[in-house]
């Protein structure tokens, strides 16, 4: 198991305070700076490892940044404290984005990111809670995170811990039936402490979602399953923060975050082949410039 980096955690705490204290413009600027730094780490990790899922990493980066830097109550130095807020990345193929976010939060040293997918590294291609603090459950097979989030939310209610539970799924991932079983129980159980965020980038592995197995009207479908639905620009920091606010109806919240797969790099954005393509040396340089 990796261990926390105290100085990184301290830096994250003061940044988080500045974000929370800042006016909306300052807040957005600080979060953008953080998110771009996270994207640059991801780029380096994937470029060095020669593997990874850059498109989905970049579409979810702003969401992760907002959750960790402005919304959730977590302690990188006590990653399993019982009353923490829980975050589950159900689209586990975007482990690179999660690792980078966790490292910048201080759960483990940023230098560890250099081992991404190297032999015997804790940082596998998909996240492993046995080795990486801040990871709540092992994901990779799509359609697992949401049921585990539902159980975690029920548990938090039983323990009266006040914990909130956040889970991010891919939009293609919502084709898995397990998610809809979980949504049914979430609304049946009135889990107002649960927020499901769908990274709605409209692309899956091999094609656009609507050309494969269409999800629309996703808002109406989620509402029909009893969710309090919020549709938001998944790259607008202040709107995302607002969308993460607690349930107002007593029902679990579903946030449809409209995102761009590959967000931040012109030649990666909204292109299906960048689901798991790896940038060449020149492309990596260009991407670095665009993210700086």
């Amino acid at each position, binding site marked *: 198991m990796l261990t926390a980096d105290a100085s990184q955690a301290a830096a994250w705490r003061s940044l988080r305070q500045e974000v929370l204290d800042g006016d909306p413009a300052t807040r957005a600027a600080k979060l953008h700076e953080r998110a771009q730094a996270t994207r640059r780490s991801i780029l380096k990790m994937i470029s060095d490892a020669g593997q990874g899922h850059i498109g989905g990493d970049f579409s979810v980066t702003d969401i992760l940044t907002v959750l960790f830097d402005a919304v959730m109550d977590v302690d990188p130095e006590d990653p399993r404290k019982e009353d923490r807020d829980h975050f589950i990345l159900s689209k586990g193929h975007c482990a690179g984005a999660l690792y980078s976010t966790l490292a910048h939060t201080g759960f483990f040293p940023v230098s560890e990111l250099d081992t991404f997918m190297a032999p015997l590294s804790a940082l*596998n291609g998909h996240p492993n809670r046995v080795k990486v603090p801040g990871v709540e459950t092992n994901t990779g097979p799509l359609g697992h995170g949401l049921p585990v989030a539902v159980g975690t939310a029920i548990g938090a209610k039983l323990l009266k811990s006040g914990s909130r539970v956040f889970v991010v799924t891919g939009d293609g991932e919502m*084709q898995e*039936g397990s998610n809809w079983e979980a949504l049914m129980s979430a609304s049946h159980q009135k889990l107002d402490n649960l927020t499901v965020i769908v990274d709605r980038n409209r692309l899956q*592995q091999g094609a656009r979602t609507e050309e494969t*197995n269409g999800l629309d009207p996703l808002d109406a479908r989620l509402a029909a399953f009893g969710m309090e639905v919020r549709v938001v620009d998944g790259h607008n920091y202040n709107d995302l923060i607002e969308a993460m606010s607690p349930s107002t109806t007593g029902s679990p919240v579903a946030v449809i975050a409209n995102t761009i797969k590959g967000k931040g790099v012109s030649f990666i954005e909204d292109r299906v082949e960048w689901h798991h393509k790896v940038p060449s040396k020149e492309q990596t340089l260009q991407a670095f410039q665009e993210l700086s």
Partner: protein
Amino acid sequence: MTTTTVLTDAPTFDNRQDFADELIALARTNDKVVAVCNDSVGSSNLTKFRDEFPDRLINVGIAEQNMVGVGAGLANAGLIPFVCAAGPFLTGRSLEQIKADVAYSQHNVILCGMSPGMAYGELGPTHHSVEDFSWLRALPGLDIVVPADGAQTRAAVRNAVADPRPTYIRVGRFKVPHVSEDNVGLERGKFVVAREGSDLTIIATGTEVSRALWAAASLAAEGVSARVLNAAYLSPLDEDAIKDAARQTGAIITAEEANVAGGLGAAVASVVGQLEDGARVPMRILGLKHFAPTGSTAFLLDHFGLTADHISAAAREVLHRD
């Protein structure tokens, strides 16, 4: 006498190419052949199939339980469905559909576990398909075919179309050398004798077959005569070949890119253990015993003791020649 020689620097190939080419060739002459997949057109090598037969590729999206159920329905309607998905999601996610809708219902679905074993290397245990032998061997009425190279992969596809029955085929992606002739056939329920030998028998499957042949060649140089059996079918199991190996040679080693709990080695051991006194030979079972750490496929095969050197070492140990 059969002696398959595979040079250690022989060129290596991804079996998915042969799989796709054979499937397309058969689809041209048999319009009952259809393919089903889970957002895996590219990773299942079905792009050309889709281009040529757009109506005969059913991509259900990321929904494997539905995918196997749909496959059973297609078979029920009279088609020959090849259901293609990465091994772990095909077998793990849809295990109950495979049990009830395919094996128990005897719908003639051809389940194609793409990139099985640890082909996905660094993507880790969620993406490794190393439990498939254990899970699927427990299902009566389901054939399990593990081709060791491209030609055998083609043979498995041909068998499935010529005589459709509930079948699981491992379609390898980790590159392996050729261990058989072009156009080789596979006889249902039979191991392939890859090399004759009398001191001990190595029973290997899939990616381990070429490694077993390399081990046998180096053992021969030490004066040890190793028989190599290619377990191309795990179900039905070639019990006769196993019994002959035990009665005619002094020990059995099995090698599989799979978990040893319930896999090839366990299948062989359950036959050997029930033989008459004097025929029960010592065994070594090589395979996985825990979830893989991070690493490439080649790294992990070494990590788990599945190289030719490990096989030779096990042979020396079991024959007390170390």
